[in-house]
């Protein structure tokens, strides 16, 4: 098991300082990610779900080490250990120059297919850019590889000379997938890759990604807010709430027998295309997600939790294994029977 491990995220925290006042002193901290741990094995798809603003995207960007680019003063704690062969590399400890040589092993697919492709470059230029950086291919070999990749993602190789604005959203996302696959990476971080697409196109792209995962032997960290999509594609599911990990376990287990009250509420909200089940128990949470600027004490979810107790406000719940491979951050549900939602 352990030699099959690709990445171990241990106690990862990402804090953005907020400056204010005349002399720009630090007035607050946005705790976008506040100590989460999970791991991804080779050829595994880990789904990550949560409401918007819960830190999913930040986790993805921290794992690919591009947070510092937009926010130079971000504070990243914990460790992100990649296992490349015998080498163990902690991305949080490396400088941007040191990270560069590992860039080809981890790629990213972005949420917005309109913004993630440079409008001034042709598709061939976009897809061949990682090849120029990380391989010694000459121009001809690069173009062959681009044509081959375009074929793999279901586009015509002749379309390589076109510009992104000549493609539809789904086609652009395929270009983004081809770019991510260009260097045969070990891990692709998919940051809500289908959220911006039509439902009919979503299914095509998801199935394409699953086919490619099997063919390229790549792992995915699949970030999404659509639970049914995540359940369909993932081997494991991680549920996040306000920068904390609420629950982490096998996809089947988490989807059908969620233990954390937040996961239960989230899953009860998934629309089911089955009228016979329309009377299932629907858990409706009250209120809004609190701001990460001022998180509630103890358990961050306690302000909306249907089973909250006074003790929840005192200590932050331990993220512990409730069943084999099933981690939950709620002491209240520990030892209780499994709930069956579906």
């Amino acid at each position, binding site marked *: 098991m352990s030699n099959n491990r690709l990445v171990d995220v241990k106690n990862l925290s990402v804090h953005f300082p907020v400056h204010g006042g005349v002399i720009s002193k630090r007035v607050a901290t946005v705790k976008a990610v506040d100590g989460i741990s999970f791991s991804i094995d080779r050829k595994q798809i880990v789904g990550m779900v949560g409401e918007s603003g819960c830190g999913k995207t930040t986790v993805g960007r921290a794992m690919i080490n591009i947070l510092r680019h937009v926010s*130079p003063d971000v504070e990243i704690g914990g460790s992100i250990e990649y296992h490349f062969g015998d080498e163990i590399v902690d991305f949080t400890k490396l400088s941007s120059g040191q*990270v560069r040589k590992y*860039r080809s092993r981890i790629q990213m697919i972005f949420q917005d297919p309109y913004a*993630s492709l*440079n409008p001034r470059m042709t598709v061939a230029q976009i897809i061949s850019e990682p090849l120029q950086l990380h391989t010694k291919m000459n121009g001809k070999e690069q173009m062959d590889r681009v044509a081959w990749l375009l074929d793999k993602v279901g586009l015509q190789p002749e379309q390589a000379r076109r510009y992104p604005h*000549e493609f539809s959203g789904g086609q652009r996302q395929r270009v983004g997938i081809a770019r991510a696959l260009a260097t045969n990476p070990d891990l692709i971080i998919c940051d809500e890759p289908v959220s911006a697409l039509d439902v009919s196109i979503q299914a095509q792209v998801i199935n394409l990604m699953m086919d490619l995962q099997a063919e390229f032997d790549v792992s995915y960290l699949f970030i999404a807010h659509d639970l049914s999509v995540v359940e369909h594609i993932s081997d494991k599911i991680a549920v996040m709430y306000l920068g904390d990990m609420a629950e982490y376990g096998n996809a089947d287990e988490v989807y059908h027998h969620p233990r954390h009250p937040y996961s239960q509420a989230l899953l009860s909200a998934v629309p089911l295309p089955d009228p016979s089940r329309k009377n299932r128990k629907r858990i409706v949470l009250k209120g809004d997600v609190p701001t990460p600027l001022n998180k509630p004490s103890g358990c961050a979810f306690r302000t909306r939790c249907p089973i909250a107790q006074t003790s929840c406000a005192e200590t932050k719940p331990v993220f512990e294994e409730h069943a084999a491979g099933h981690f939950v951050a709620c002491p209240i549900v520990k030892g209780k029977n499994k709930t069956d939602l579906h």
Partner: protein
Amino acid sequence: MAEQKEISLSILKKRWLKFKTLKRGYYSFVILIILYGLSWFLPLLINNRALVVSYEGELFFPVISGYHAGSEFGQDVPGETIYRELKTSWKQEGSENWLLMPPYPYSPYEDITVQGNKMYEAPSDSHWLGTDNTGRDVFARLCYAFNISISFALVLTILNYIIGVIIGGSMGYFGGKFDLFFQRLIEIWSSLPMLFVIIIISSIIRPSFFLLIFIYTIVNWIGMTYLMRAEFYREKSKDYVAAALSMGQTNFKVMFKHILPNSLVPVITYFPFAVVGGISALVGLDYLGFGMPPPTPSWGQMLDVGLQNISKWWMVFAPVSAQFVTLIMVVFIGEAVREAFDPKVYSRLR
């Protein structure tokens, strides 16, 4: 395949095609390019030195070789040959020697010290726009000044752009303390009274073309930094930049290969107006007498002299209308460029 090429145009190419349809700006552009191109060959077109002289079986090229004393060609004048008179005298004599003058045989520098030149001559067939207070041909000076004005404005604008893009782009891209430092520096710098600085420097050191460009660049690079800072600041948060970084592209490449091509809209649309600014700046300095050293032909100096002799209408009319026509053509270009880059019209009429 040809069809394929036609479909896949980069955004810039589309804008160029759109620009071509805006006749007023496009023709102004073509005319200015041709005129400016021609102005580099002015010594061959407007000059008092002959293009070719054939004297006693030998060929001379005074335009290229420069000074030839009158005695060399058997002309009895002190100093340099007066080729116009040489030509007429040889013609009258029916001599075998011949020479070929440029189409407009007057130089912008020859004044009344040259035999046969008069002050304040009204426009005529030989002097199309008359002569000025020192007997220099106004039309010749006008044309040479055109070349100097446009060259000055272009070199100045391009230099400003290079510095402005690099500094402004870095401010927007790197942000943080670098941005803060340069913002404060620019605020201090831009509050200096630059016209006085230029006047003081010009009164100490004798100004030249490149010194003036240098002084103006020190002042003017600031304008571009604001625009580029904002552009880079906005573009760097877009996903294609994150994608480039996540595949390991260097900061330099990200800035100039990815962000800059997407930040060119203000650069290009602002360019013609910056050129207008450059031309006007030189005219202003020359008018005040702190510009190019005399006797360099310049519109500002001609305007100054013309206003002192306001009754000689051609001396005022010539520089004013030359400036007017040049500036309005550049503005037409600027307007057409702006319209070609307007996303609204672009998306609707595409």
